[in-house]
Structures are given as C-alpha cells and as structure tokens.
C-alpha cells in the first residue's frame, strides 16, 4: 500500500471509512436473520398456548404429570396431613423461604401445581419420595417437601409454580 499518511483527514480517508462502515453495517444486518432463525418459530409459539386440565380424576394423595411448553407439570392433590406438614415448617429452615399459602391458590389449598424440573440442573424429580415426602431428584440428590420447596441438596430454589388459574373448582388453566 502506498503510505501517504497526513495528519489532516482527507476526502480519501472519509471514503475509506465510509466504505468500511457500510461493510460493517451490512455484515451486522446479514447476521441478524441468521441468528434470529434460531428463536422459536411461529408454530412453536402457537403450540405454547395455555392448556386446560380437568382435576376430577385425581384422587386425594395422587398426582398427575401434564406437559405445557415442553415442561412436565406436577399437579398434586395433597392430603390434609401433607398440607399441614407443608404449613408447619419453620421458615428459617428453608433455603428459599416461601410459605405454602404463597405457592397455592387460595381456597384450593390441597392442589399443588409445580413445574417438575429440578432447579439444580434440570432433571425431573420423582414425586412422593425423599425424606420430606415431596419430591426427590435422583440426579444429584435434591429433596423437596410437599410444597415443592427445596429442603436438602444442591438445588438453590423451590420448584417453580407455573402461571395458572382455576377456571372452575375442578378445572385449571395453565399458561
């Protein structure tokens, strides 16, 4: 290259900078669709619409697993004893303090609805297992109580509660 460097910016410098800048803008604009295509597509988003679940077949002390947005959701019909256990816990014993009342819908105290994904590294905990009678994650030994709150093991947070609402006494809408 010819080295005609001068202290003052010249028209030539402006041209070179403008061309380089246009190339950079073009490259960035091209990158956008190439990355954007990795996001969920329209049919995936549409398939993530809210679902309705009928609660009538779930007997007391039983649970079912449904799927919403590719995630397993535990719906548990807790016994009176389980609810009492969940409510009699001393908050200071919890790594992620939260009352049981805050995790269920008022007036539907026996229904626990949680996303069944361990907050440690995403495994699926097994219901009705572990020393607290709630959930036990076999991967790394996290133990959750009957409110889905973390009690032992490496998981940092309680099992998440998905957005849901009671449409009627026996039907919920998740999402």
């Amino acid at each position: 290259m010819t080295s005609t460097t001068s202290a003052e910016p010249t028209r030539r410098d402006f041209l070179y900078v403008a061309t380089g800048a246009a190339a950079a803008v073009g490259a960035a604009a091209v990158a956008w669709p190439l990355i954007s295509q990795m996001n969920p597509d329209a049919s995936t988003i549409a398939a993530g619409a809210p679902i309705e679940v009928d609660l009538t077949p779930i007997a007391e002390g039983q649970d079912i697993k449904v799927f919403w947005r590719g995630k397993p959701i535990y719906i548990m019909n807790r016994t009176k004893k389980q609810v009492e256990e969940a409510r009699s816990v001393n908050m200071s014993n919890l790594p992620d303090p939260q009352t049981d009342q805050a995790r269920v819908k008022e007036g539907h105290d026996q229904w626990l609805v949680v996303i069944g994904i361990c907050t440690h590294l995403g495994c699926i905990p097994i219901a009705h297992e572990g020393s607290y009678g709630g959930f036990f994650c076999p991967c790394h030994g996290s133990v959750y109580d009957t409110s889905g709150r973390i009690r032992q093991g490496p998981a940092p947070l309680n099992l998440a509660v998905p957005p849901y609402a009671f449409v009627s006494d026996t039907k919920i809408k998740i999402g």
Partner: protein
Amino acid sequence: MSGPSSYNPQNPALKWIERRLPLGGLIHSSFIAYPTPRNLNYWWTFGAILSMMLAVQIITGVILAMHYTPHVDLAFKSVEGIVRDVNYGWLLRYLHSNGASMFFIAVYVHMLRGLYYGSYKEPREVLWILGVIIYLLMMATGFMGYVLPWGQMSFWGATVITNLFSAIPYVGDSIVTLLWGGYAVGNPTLNRFFSLHYLLPFVIAGVVVLHVWALHVAGQNNPAGVEPKTEKDTVPFTPYATIKDAFGMACFLLFFAWFVFYIPNYLGDPDNYVQANPAVTPAHIVPEWYYLPFYAILRSIPSKLGGVIAMFGAIIVLAFLPWLDSAKTRSSKYRPLAKQFFWIFVAVCLGLGYLGAQPPEGIYVIAGRILTVCYFAYFLIVLPLLSRIETARPLPNSIADDVLAKSGSRKAPMVSTMIAVAVGGSLLLGGMNNAKAENSHGTTPPSLSWSFAGPFGKFDQGQLQRGLKIYKEVCSACHALSLVAFRNLADPGGPGYTPAQAAAFAAEYKIKDGPNDAGDMFERPGRPADYFPSPFPNEQAARAANGGAAPPDLSLMAKARGYERGFPQFIFDAFMQFQEKGPNYIDALLQGYEEKAPAGFALPEGSYYNRIFPGHAIKMPKPLSDGQVTFDDGSPATVQQYAKDVAAFLMWTAEPHLEARKRLGLQVMIFLIIFCGLLYFTKRKVWAAAH
C-alpha cells in the same frame, strides 16, 4: 505461496503461533502479498464471486438443515414450515434456492472466461482439471438439493436422473436399485440425498482449496495470456485485487438480491410447489436451467446408453481440453479464428439449453442433434485443428505493455459478449418457458392488476377478508387449506384480523382431536394454533365424494400454477417483477366456465369445458355464481369479484410473507446500491496509485 513468505509478525503472540503453525504467513502470501497481474478484467472477479456463493450456500444450507425433515411424509411440509413459521425462514430458503442458480451463473462465466483466455493451458492443467471436478461435484450437489423439497419436479427429476444409470449394460438395474435403496425413489433415497447434499459442499470446499492452491503455484492467467516478467507486471493482491473483487461481489449481490426479493420463484418450476405424487408424472419434466444443455445432449442421441455416455462425455471432455487445444498462444484475444469459434461455441451451448427445454419432437430433435455434433466438434475437431493451422497475432511483450496499449479493442469484446449473452440467455429462458407451453385453444389468462404486484405491492386487506369468506362458504366444501393456521389470520401482512378475531373464527370450526383418556377421538372447537381442517377425512374419501378426482389442497395453489408467458414477454417479466401467474390463472379458471366447448372438442363424461384448464376438461363443476356470497363492505356480489378476491386470498395463503419480502427487499436494494457506489469510488482511489 511459492517461495519464502515475507510475513513478519511483530506481535509476540502471533510470532509464537507463526513458528508453530504458519497460518498467518499462508494467508499473507496467498491473499495479501500475492502478486496479481495488473491487467485482470472483471471476468476475473467471478472466482471471488464463486467463493462468496459457496459460503452463502453453506451458511444458508446449514441453517435450513436445522429446520428441515428428510422424510417423505414431512419433507414438503417442513420446507413450508421454514417459509411460513421460522423467523426469516422465507429469506433463508430463497437465498439458498436462488443462490444455487447464481452459483451456476457464476461458474459458467468463470468456465467460459477460462476457455476464452486459455486458462487451462500449461502450466495450469491441474488447476483446470480440479475445476472440472468442482463442476461435477456442483452438479451432483445441486441435483440432490433440488430433490429435498419433495415436490413433483423433485421426485420425478430424481426418478429420471437415477434411471440414467439403468443404461449401464448388465448391472444397470442393480445399480439403480442400489442408488434408490428401494424399489422406487422413496424415503431411503431422500434420506441419502439429504446426507450427501450436506456432505458434498464441504468436499467442494476442499477441492476449492486445492484449486486455489494450484492457482497460486502457477500464478494467475490474465487477458494478455503472457506470464508476468517484472515487478511492473503485477500488483499486490491486497488492496488491488481485494477491492476490485469486493466491488464485483457487491454488484453480483445486487443482481442476486433482485431475484431473492422480487422474483424468487422466477427460475423455479410451479410444479415443485405440488407435493411429490408417485402416481402422476408432470406433463414436462424439465431440469433446472443450468442442466438444460446436457439434458438436450442426452435426448439427442437415439439410444439409451449412447445418450447417457454423450451427456457425461460432454462434461468429461472438458478435462482433456488442455491437450485437445495445443496452441501456443493462450488468449483468444490474439487468436482471430479461435475467438470466432469460441462465440459460436457459446451460441451452441445456449442453443442446446433452449432445446433442452423444448418438447423432444419434430424440428427440435434435429436441431438438438446438429448442436450436439457442434458441441463435440468444437472440442474434438475445431480446437485440435486450429492449434495447428491458426496464425496468432503478435503477443504484447509484457503485461505492462498490454496495459499501456489498451485501446478501443477492449471495449468491443465486452459489447459483443453482452449482446451474445443477452440474445442467447433470452433464447434459453424463453425455451424454458415454452417447455410448459400448451398450444391448442390458444389460451393465456389475461394479466390482471393486483395490489400486491410490483416492488411496493401490498395485499388489500379487504380483498383478503372477502377471499377468506368465499373460501369458507364455497371452496372449503371440497378443498383443504392444510398449511394455513387460524393464527395466520392475525399475522402482519395478512387479512388484518386481531388475535381475538382469529380465535373467534377458529372457534367456529370443529377440530378432530384425540385420543383422549378413553382412547377415543373427539371433536372440540378450533384454536388459533389449529390448521384449517380438510373437509374429508382422507384422500380416498375425497376421491369417492368427487367422482375419483381428489380436490387439491389450496394452500399453495397460487404458486403451484403457471402458464406460458411467451418468448419476449418472459424476458421482460424478470425486469418487471412479474410474479402473478398463479393468481391470474386462478381468476381465469374460476371465470372460465362461461364459454361453450368449440365444435369438435370431445368433452369427456362428467367433465366441464374450461379453456384455461390444461386439457380444457375439468371435473370441478362451476363453483361460483352471482349472488352466492354477500359482502359486508358492499363489494358487488358477482363471479368476477369473487374470482379475483379468492385468487388474491390464495396468493396470500401461498406466500404469507410477501409484504415483508418486498419491504426488506427495498431496504436491501438501497443499501447495496450505496455500498456498490462506495466500493466503486474506493476502488478507483486505490487503483489510481497503480496506473
């Protein structure tokens, strides 16, 4: 690349790496310090353009493969899913499908440039043969890629091309079965084509590295065809060739963008928007335009094996070119006879391309045979003979002399090239179009004016809403719309409904779902995520209800139908962005019931005369009559109005992102024009130092 590198990194980290892996030195000596003949013209930028196109194809292809499903039941639908639902999926698909055509345009220019300037001659024979290998790999890759969308042309193209191998004596049939992995083209075929279509581009990239390596050992040829002798004959690759190539690439991108954003289906066949059907062959099986000359040679030989040998021979003969043409003078610029024969050869190739698209009958067969003989004669007779009898004009002493002596003679070939290419290209394209011609009854649907035509075209929302109403009240009694979901009614660029309106519309439909806990199927109200249901449970039921003819799905109808545009018109279409064949056809078909069958036309039992329909006998009774559907907006309740509205609606269902495509296209075009201008002036400034 030959000789020690002048690369001398100062940065200690780069130094450390350079001692262990001299990659920096390799890049420096290949693409920065590499001496480039200073007289290269723009025909030489096609090498860079080809590298760019290979990169574009690999990048878009890798991404498309993330969304594509290589299964006979899902492939067609997954491609439509890409175009309809994936973010910018329509752009990626059109870039890839049109990119293939651009790749071949560039490679043909590149090859013809090599042919004209004698780039295959000593010491570049290996470079040339590697090029022929790349070309063969490109053809295989392009063919297998075309099969993947699993449309009618894909399927039948695959059937025809694989059957070529059945011409091999004794083992032909076994080889074809081996290629198919079955008793016919089917799922195993599609699976292996996908695998190989993904693999071969990387093989191409590997051979391209060898090609470039061989180029850098031998040095670039140049228009004068004399080797560089002194420093004055060359310029460093960077910035001179780099900026010139960048300008060439940007101009090519502008050309590419025109196709992608404004005429994305211009080079494709409407039949490929019909899902593969092993029970029906399209009227004309025509390969993509870039294979037409070889297809013509195949058909010219009245023997199965002979045709196959001739077709492959037409490509293989290129590899022997360095020895067939033994003339001492490289560049045709200094070979008066070779120059003329070169242009005749170009015309022969274009003529073969034209014939490849014609039906194999009458004069076309004879012309095909003559041109096939001409094609081979050029390589096997003309070039060997010329190299013995021709007296070349004196060569310039050096490249520097050539640059200084450049005069009017440089303009002339450029102009004549442009004229020859324009004439030949139009013949070829015209031929392509004529292949689908239908001569009897002389029927071409009238070209209507559509709101969505042209660079700023937009759908008329009222028209789409009326069209939807007609579809729902009339067409949906027989026709499915299986690729369109209720949620699409609320998509931007569509009929303009709100999500709540789309949900309410969906709820009017009963959707079959299940199985439930009891193992039974059940019906429920439609949701926005559901697709428009088919009126029949399956194809057999549809056939039974319609006298044996299954009503086609209407989702892609506007893209899956086309008609002949005629030779000159077809050329103007590329500039005028004419893409409305489908809607014109649909409109004309729906209105085409009015006329009486001409005397002597034998109308089959149970059919209706419709001059627009291929064969003019359609099984569908007249679907529309005046006053059938009432519109809320006071539009006239006439068949004419219905036909146009429903055709526009079907255009939207076939291409829901049409508005987004045109809008983005305008932005891209403006950007590229500015960018090309900047590059041009930068290039001039950079080269000012060299002259």
